[in-house]
């Protein structure tokens, strides 16, 4: 079962770039890396997913090195509304066992004015 490790919390200021690195040393060959964002009193919301190299969408970028043992979520020019918990997770191999996406404790990002 792939396990993830990410910082417990990070502080930033409006307009800065926030980079959150997640370690997943035991990632399996067919696992994807997915990041979710959770605001208080809401369910997690999908941000971005990747398998290798770099993925970018309108919200964030995801950098994955060749060995795939870590990944970095990059949030450009954060605003106060980006204050949330960010979860990094990897799949459990899928297949007949089904989807057991495992969430860790997440990283609490606090964006200050």
């Amino acid at each position, binding site marked *: 079962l792939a396990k993830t490790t990410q910082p417990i919390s990070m502080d930033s200021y409006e307009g800065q770039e926030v980079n959150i690195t997640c370690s997943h040393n035991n990632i399996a060959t*067919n*696992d*994807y890396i*997915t990041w*979710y964002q*959770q605001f208080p*009193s*809401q*369910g*997690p*919301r*999908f941000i971005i*997913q990747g398998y290798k190299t770099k993925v970018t969408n309108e919200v964030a970028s995801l950098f994955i090195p060749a060995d795939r043992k870590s990944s970095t979520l990059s949030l450009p020019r954060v605003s106060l509304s980006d204050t949330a*918990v960010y*979860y990094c997770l*990897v*799949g*459990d*191999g*899928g*297949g007949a*066992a*089904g*989807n*057991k*996406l*495992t*969430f*860790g*404790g*997440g990283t609490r990002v606090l964006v200050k004015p």
Partner: protein
Amino acid sequence: DTAVSQTPKYLVTQMGNDKSIKCEQNLGHDTMYWYKQDSKKFLKIMFSYNNKELIINETVPNRFSPKSPDKAHLNLHINSLELGDSAVYFCASSQEIFNTGELFFGEGSRLTVL
């Protein structure tokens, strides 16, 4: 239109009672899940159903019984509630059971057992 909706949003009850949480998704997805989020914000999968069939049943006390009457609904019934069952329970759905694609979560049901 809420994609994944669960009711009730808040539930306060006494130890020993039985309660249910309902979940419905209007996304046409085949797979639905129940997750439990504890006070430390860890999200742990409890159950997964694919097209009404139980796929994942993690180490959950058998006081917890999911029921999927059709692929758009996944309900969670909890018998003999205990203090440790207090948590936020999230329902989610995905298009298929594999580890690509995204999970769509409901807003959660906060259960408090007194």
